[in-house]
């Protein structure tokens, strides 16, 4: 079948349509939605949410998941914040330190999962508790507020009046991830290891190493998200992802699941995750703007996730019946 038709039936196209539809809906109902400030805020918030989605996506491709994204993200951000406050480090080494912490925690997850042969669910459930607990213990639950001003200025900077530099970082990461999984041997090997570990191993791929890399990458991306939040709020706050970092879980899964990343592993869509997370952020922002009960937002997001998986199910069975898949 032809390329254009295939794209019209794809998840990504569906998401673009939804984004446009809701965009039109919100801007007609509330003109403030298209104001410069609102668009800027939307971009800045989605930058973080997309990054959280990426962080989960790169683990989902192994057929596993990472419940500790929030704990790692906060841990990395706190470590970065500590480096900047306690040693007065400039932001570049501080950020590198934070990302290194994210990578280390992610790699630790990966190593435990690979060595034990246990499912990542239970391992990352445990490490989520451990990472967060250690972080709170070490920081005494105190925030680091003396963050390099140069760093926090990025979080407030506006390019052309509406674009946040954070969004550009997210786009850059999206491009890097696309290149990684499409145009490098490493990324392809990670995907194959996730799709069918036994076949990958017999074909000469070091599966355990690839799975560890996926978790490490997840840790780094969670760290990026955490540090973006630091840049935006101007402080590294232990509670910025909620108790145990649980507040990140829903956005982390919403993006990839809406975007068509296969939960059984082996297939991903960077663009889909980006659009999925963006859609979620837009809905949240729009609903808040229209003041439709701020407290109910979580319910809407839950219903959205449910609707997304159900629609995806229907779409797949339709495509299968029409032999289009």
């Amino acid at each position, binding site marked *: 079948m032809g390329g254009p038709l295939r794209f019209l039936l794809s998840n990504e196209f569906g998401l673009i349509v939804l984004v446009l539809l809701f965009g039109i809906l919100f801007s007609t109902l509330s003109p403030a939605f298209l104001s410069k400030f609102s668009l800027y805020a939307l971009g800045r918030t989605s930058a973080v949410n997309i990054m959280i989605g990426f962080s989960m996506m790169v683990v989902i491709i192994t057929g596993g*998941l990472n419940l500790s994204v929030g704990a790692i993200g906060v841990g990395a951000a706190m470590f970065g914040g500590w480096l900047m406050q306690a040693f007065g480090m400039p932001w570049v080494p501080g950020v590198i330190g934070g990302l290194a912490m994210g990578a280390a925690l992610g790699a630790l997850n990966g190593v*435990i999962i690979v060595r*034990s*042969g*246990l*499912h990542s*669910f*239970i*391992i990352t*459930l*445990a*490490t*989520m*508790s*451990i*990472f*967060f*607990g*250690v972080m*709170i*213990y070490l920081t005494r*639950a105190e925030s680091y507020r003396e963050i390099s001003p140069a760093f926090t200025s990025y979080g407030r900077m506006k390019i052309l009046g509406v674009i946040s530099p954070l969004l550009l970082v997210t786009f850059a990461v999206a491009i890097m991830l696309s290149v990684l999984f499409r145009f490098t041997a490493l990324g392809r090997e990670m995907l194959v290891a996730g799709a069918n570990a036994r076949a990958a191993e017999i074909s000469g791929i070091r599966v355990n190493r690839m799975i560890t890399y996926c978790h490490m990458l997840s840790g780094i991306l969670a760290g990026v998200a955490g540090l973006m939040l630091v840049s935006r709020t101007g402080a590294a706050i232990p509670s910025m992802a909620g*108790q*145990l970092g*649980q507040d990140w*879980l*829903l956005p982390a*899964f919403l993006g990839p*699941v809406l975007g068509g990343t296969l*939960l059984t592993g082996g297939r991903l869509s960077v663009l889909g995750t980006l659009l999925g997370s963006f859609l979620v952020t837009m809905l949240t922002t729009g609903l808040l703007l229209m003041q439709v*009960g701020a*407290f*109910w*937002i*979580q*319910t*809407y*997001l*839950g*219903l959205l*996730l*449910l609707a997304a*998986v*159900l629609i995806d*199910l229907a779409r797949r069975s339709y495509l299968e019946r029409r032999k289009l898949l």
Partner: protein
Amino acid sequence: MNQKFWQSEWFGPLLITVTAIVIVSSLNPSFLSPFNIQILLLAISVNAMIAFSQMIIIAIGQMNLSVGAIGGMAAISFGGMMEVWGIPWPIAAVLSLSIGLLAGIANGALCAYTGISAFVITLASLSIFKGINLGITEAQPFYDIPDTVKSLGNDTFLHPLPWLVLPAVAAAVLLWYLLFRLPLGRAILAVGGNEHAAALSGISVPRIVIVAHAISGLLAALAGIMLVGRLQIGQPTIGDDWLILSFAAPVIGGAILTGGHVSVAGTFLGVAIVAIITQVLVLFSIDPFLVQVVLGGLILWAVGINRYREVRAHRKIAAGAI
């Protein structure tokens, strides 16, 4: 049956529990004071309910992330019905339990009939239930809790045994009877052990999945209601911190996460171990934040042991044991 009792999975936790009690009480005699025992039992009673609520889902080889959200929703319904509508507490309790039951049935039906993984379904429902909780309470607690409820949630009926022990023990006995003596419970474990085989034998897998989730919802709601009594306040945050514990206790008790095998006694002991450790951290004034670290560590340790046990058993069969 032909297994020695010291080989069963609850023996390890029992040994640890007893050893921990002996060591801790010798270091700090106030540990075994009636008051402390009462506190300990209160914690164990509520937490056992939380753990059982997850255990029944582990039995069918799934997971339920929404245990805490259901508990929280039931808790604020309980508090709200009494404060806002002035409903007598027993009726409010029954109604809140029904809410938990319905929430569980909804989870189960979605898992059973869509084929979407329980993880995603319960992640979504976690968010929905928690959202309803926040939507109703706007994050404000219900303070007006009847004295009877407060008393039932804290006082003892036979010193130092608190009232809350009764529902916990009843739930444990009933669950054990269900899972190991009744066809319904065996069917739950059969679905967890080999879904395909269970279906071939005429067991309706969707029905069993729904039943398991319904029980889970009911137990979670019960835990929420018990906590309202214990905290003497209808807190919207009830349930927020249940997730880790709900998995820790069953796996410490030897439950296999792929399903088909759980231990009620083991889970109970798992809860006891967690409670003792938490108490110890308080008694020796160690940073309470470390509880999280210890809980996580316990999970890793327990799943490691269970895994080792499985691998070893497998090797034995490969070597032609029978």
